């Protein structure tokens, strides 16, 4: 077995503390200066904290996963307008005025499109600029999602390590008691 304990773990990733891998339970408890029960309580608390962070990250992930198709949709619309450019044709569309009510609009050849930037601001862009801006937003969103997914993977590892450690501390304790009991009965029999 390779004992590569030194390379064992990243200590932290974007504010998420790493979980220490325990080589030997006895040494670990001595280091912490805790008995089995307090060590288990400590680990359980840590596990809870990881769960809270996981919830937060999962919510962020869902948000981004919804945002990406939205941006893609916008890009598709701009691309449609761009394709119509130079053909002299107008683009006829049915659009929703209010829920369930649709009206017809004809869009004449256009060079520009307005993008909703948020915070009650809408800005007119040329089709090229709009594409560039949307593409940049899309790239950013995808990059953040990637980082987020990596965060989640890291977090899951820490959760797993903590769970394994809890099981090991528990098992170690059971084993310890058993040996003590065997020893005690052996003494009593003497």
């Amino acid at each position, binding site marked *: *077995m390779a004992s590569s304990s030194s390379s064992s773990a990243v200590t932290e990733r974007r504010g998420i503390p790493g979980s220490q891998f325990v080589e030997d339970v006895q040494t670990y408890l001595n280091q912490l200066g805790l008995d089995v029960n307090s060590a288990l309580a400590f680990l359980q608390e840590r596990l809870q904290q990881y769960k809270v962070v996981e919830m937060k990250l999962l919510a962020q992930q869902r948000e981004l996963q919804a945002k990406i198709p939205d941006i893609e949709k916008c890009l598709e619309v701009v691309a*449609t307008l761009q394709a119509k450019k130079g053909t002299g044709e107008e683009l006829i569309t049915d*659009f*929703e005025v209010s829920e369930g009510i649709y009206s017809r609009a004809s869009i004449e050849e256009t060079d520009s499109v307005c993008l909703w930037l948020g915070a009650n601001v809408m800005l007119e862009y040329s089709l090229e600029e709009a594409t560039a801006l949307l593409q940049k937003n899309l790239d950013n969103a995808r990059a953040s999602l990637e980082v987020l997914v990596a965060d989640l993977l890291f977090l899951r590892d820490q959760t797993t*390590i903590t769970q394994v450690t809890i099981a090991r501390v528990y098992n170690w304790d059971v084993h310890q008691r058993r040996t003590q009991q065997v020893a005690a009965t052996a003494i009593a029999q003497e």
Partner: protein
Amino acid sequence: MQQGGGSETEVTWEDQQNINKFGRLNNRLHELHDEIKIAKSFPEKHRLPPLKPPIPTASPLQTTPPYPPPVRHIPAAQREANDNLEDASNELILTDEEVVRFQIGEVFAHVPKDEVESRIEQMQEATSQKLEKLEEEKKSVVAQMSELKKILYGKFGESINLEED
């Protein structure tokens, strides 16, 4: 993790890393299941019911063309699911309208039938490729998991539980 066995098998960092890896793979497998389901056919319970055929108008005096059937917003994931694209292309063959309404973003653009046909074909192509990639990844994940199972069960036997409930 099974508790209470009081097992004496030592857990090394290497074992821990294998367990972590197994956890990651298992998680990814679940994600893949969902993604594949969505790409194949959008889950039934989230689907909107099919449109009722328009009620034929009795009045022969009607001069304006019948009002187009109601239109609805359908989530992108559903629109791009393989089954739905197939439905769409079948409907397209049946219709005798030259211009159909094709949803782009939030609006329905009036697009010539031929163009819609080719667009749907492209979308079908993209979805099939995506599905293929997902299936491939699933295969590799399953293979890696069974490899890890062999190693971990080999070492820990009954003291470890790697099965889903």
